[in-house]
C-alpha cells in the first residue's frame, strides 16, 4: 500500500485548504497593516472572539448529529444576565461560583432543548427557534426589563478576563483548554465517536445499539454548557451584562462551523475545522477596521463578500483537488 504524498494530503484535506486560506488572509492583512501580526494584536483578536470560538465547539457537536441550534445566544444572554444580576445585587461575589452558576444554567437550558429535540422529536430548527424566543425573554425578565449590570457592579468577576497567566489572558487559556479537551474528546473517546456515528448514519447507529436519543440530548446539553460558558466569558470580557447581548451572534457561530467544513447534514466536521473556521471569521472581524481604503460604510458588505468568497473558493479548490485525484487513477 503506497503512502499518500504530502502534496496530495495537503490538497486532499479540507482543513489544509482552510489553513491555506487563513495564511493568505494573514499575509494580505499584514501587508496592509503590519501591526496585525503582533502578539498583542493576535491575543486581542482571540480574546475578543472568545465567545464565538468556544461556542463553535458546541455547534460542531450539534451539527455533527445533523442538528442546528439557533437558541445559543439567548442562552448566553440568559446566563450572562443571571450572573450579572446576582453579582450586581451581591447575592454572590465569588468568580468561581459565578462560573459554576453560569455553566449550570447553560446546562439546564441545553438539556431542555435536547429533551424537546430527542424525546419529542421536534425538528432542531423549530425547537431552537422557540427556545431562542423563550430564553431571550427570560433574559429580559431576569434583567428586570432592561437593567444592565455594568463594570462597577461586577466586582472581582470582571478581573477574570484581565488576569494574565504566562502572558496571556485567562480567557485565551479557557479557549485553549476547551479546544484541547474537545480535540481529545472527539477523537479519542467513544462518546465523541458516537456523535460522529449518529450524524453519519442514525439508523445504523440505532441498529448497532447506540442510544441515538441520548447522544442528541448530550450534544445539545454540551452546546448549552458552552453557551453558559460563553455567557460568563462575555460578561467578564466586556465587563457588562445586557439582556440583548450577542443578538444574532448565533449566525457567526454557525458560519464559523460551516466555513470550517462542518457539514450541515451531519457526520462531517472536525475540531480543527471549527478552529480554522472561527479563526477566519475572527481575522476578518479584526482586520476589516484596519484596512484603510474603505469607507466605514462599506465594512458590512465587504465582510459578507469575504465570507462568500471564502466558502466559494473552498469549494472550487475542493473540486480541483477531486479532479486531480481522479486524473491520477489508472485504468
Amino acid at each position: 500500500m503506497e503512502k499518500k504524498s504530502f502534496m496530495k494530503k495537503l490538497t486532499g484535506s479540507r482543513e489544509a485548504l482552510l489553513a491555506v486560506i487563513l495564511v493568505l488572509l494573514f499575509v494580505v492583512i499584514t501587508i496592509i497593516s503590519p501591526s496585525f501580526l503582533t502578539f498583542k494584536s493576535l491575543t486581542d483578536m482571540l480574546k475578543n472572539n472568545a465567545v464565538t470560538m468556544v461556542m463553535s465547539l458546541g455547534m460542531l457537536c450539534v451539527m455533527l448529529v445533523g442538528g442546528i441550534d439557533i437558541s445559543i445566544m439567548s442562552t448566553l444572554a440568559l446566563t450572562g444576565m443571571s450572573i450579572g444580576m446576582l453579582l450586581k445585587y451581591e447575592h454572590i461575589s465569588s468568580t468561581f461560583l459565578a462560573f459554576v452558576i453560569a455553566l449550570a444554567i447553560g446546562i439546564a437550558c441545553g438539556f431542555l432543548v435536547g429533551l424537546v429535540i430527542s424525546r419529542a422529536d421536534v425538528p432542531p430548527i423549530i425547537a431552537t427557534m422557540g427556545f431562542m424566543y423563550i430564553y431571550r425573554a427570560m433574559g429580559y425578565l431576569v434583567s428586570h426589563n432592561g437593567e444592565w449590570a455594568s463594570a462597577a457592579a461586577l466586582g472581582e468577576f470582571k478581573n477574570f478576563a484581565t488576569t494574565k497567566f504566562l502572558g496571556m489572558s485567562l480567557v485565551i487559556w479557557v479557549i485553549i483548554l476547551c479546544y484541547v479537551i474537545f480535540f481529545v474528546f472527539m477523537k479519542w473517546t467513544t462518546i465523541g465517536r458516537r456523535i460522529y456515528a449518529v450524524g453519519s448514519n442514525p439508523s445504523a447507529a440505532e441498529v448497532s445499539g447506540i442510544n441515538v436519543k441520548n447522544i442528541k440530548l448530550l450534544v445539545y446539553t454540551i452546546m448549552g454548557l458552552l453557551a453558559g460558558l460563553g455567557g460568563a466569558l462575555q460578561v467578564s470580557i466586556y465587563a457588562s451584562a445586557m439582556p440583548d447581548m450577542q443578538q444574532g451572534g448565533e449566525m457567526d457561530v454557525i458560519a464559523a462551523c460551516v466555513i470550517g467544513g462542518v457539514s450541515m447534514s451531519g457526520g462531517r466536521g472536525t475540531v480543527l475545522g471549527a478552529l480554522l473556521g472561527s479563526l477566519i471569521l475572527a481575522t476578518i472581524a479584526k482586520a476589516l477596521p484596519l484596512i484603510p481604503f474603505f469607507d466605514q460604510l462599506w465594512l458590512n458588505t465587504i465582510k459578507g463578500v469575504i465570507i462568500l468568497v471564502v466558502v466559494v473558493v473552498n469549494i472550487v479548490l475542493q473540486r480541483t483537488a477531486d479532479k486531480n485525484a481522479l486524473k491520477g487513477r489508472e485504468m
Partner: protein
Amino acid sequence: GSADGKKIALVGKSAGNAFFEIAAKSFVETAEAEGATVDTVYPEAATADAQIKVLDNLISQDYDAICISANDVNALQAKLQEAMDEGIKISCFDSATNPDSRQIFINQAGTVAVGQALLDACLDISGGEGQFAILSATSQAANQNAWIDAMKKIMEEDDKYSKLELVEVAYGDDEPQKSTDQTAALLEKYPDLKVICAPTTVGIAAAAKYLQDNGSACKLTGLGLPSEMLEYTGADDEHSCPYFYLWDMQGLGKLSALTTIALINDEITGAADETFTAGDLGDYTITAADDGGTEVVLGAPLEFNPDNIEEMAKLY
C-alpha cells in the same frame, strides 16, 4: 393633578434599554403624580417597522398623547400624522422624528451644546493639539450623526481647534465586540492618537475598558452612563476616561412628561416661542430646532468627573 384621567403612551426604541428605562421611570412617576395613566410600550425590535406596528395598535386605543423615542426620522411620519389627525398629541424625546411627524421634541441637550462640550473635552484632554477619533454607534444613528456634524462644524469655524485633527469616525454598531475591534484598530492605525470621543453608551464603555486594560496613553471622553463608566473614570493614568458627559436622564423623563401633559391640556401647541412651566424644573421656552421643527431643550449636558461620578452612579 392637571392631567386627571388622561392616557399617555410612552414608546421606547426597544425593550431592555437601560438608558430608556431611567427616563421612562421618571416620566411615569411625573405623569402619574399629575393624575395621568401611562402605558410604556416597546416594539419587538429596535426598528421602525416594529414601531409602526406599535403605533397602529396605539392609534386605535384612544390615547390622549404619544411620547416616542423614534427609531427612524422619517419612517413613522404616516402613522404619527394619522395619530395627530385623530387628535392624539405627539411629542418626541431622546430621538426625534422629522418636524412633520411631531408637535414637539424634548431635546436632552442642544445639539450644538453637546457638540461643543465634546469638542472642548477633546481639546482639553489632548492638551490643545493632536489627533483624535470618534467612535460612534452605527453610521445611521441620527443623534450621533447630528452631534458629530456639529463638532465638525465648530472645528471649521473656530481657530481654537485648528491644531486638533479628526482622523476618523469609526462605527462600533453599539456592540461591545465590534466597538473593541474598532478601538484597537484606531490605536493601531494612529499610534499618536490622543483622544477617542465616543458619543454612545455602549461604545464608550467598550472603548474605556479596552484602553484601561491596555494602559493606553490615549484617553477617552464622550457620552456615557455614570454607572457604566464608574470603573473607568479618574484623573490619573490608571483610568482611561478623565471625564465625560450625559444629560439629566431623570430630568429628561420629567420634562417629557410635563411637556406632553402641557400639550394635552392645550397649554402649548408646540409652536416656537410658547412658554410653559414644567413644575420644579422651571420655565421653558419652545425654540426652533435645527431640523425646522420645534423643541424644548432640557439644558446643558452634565459633566461627570471623578468628583461627582460616585454620587451619580447611584442614580443611573
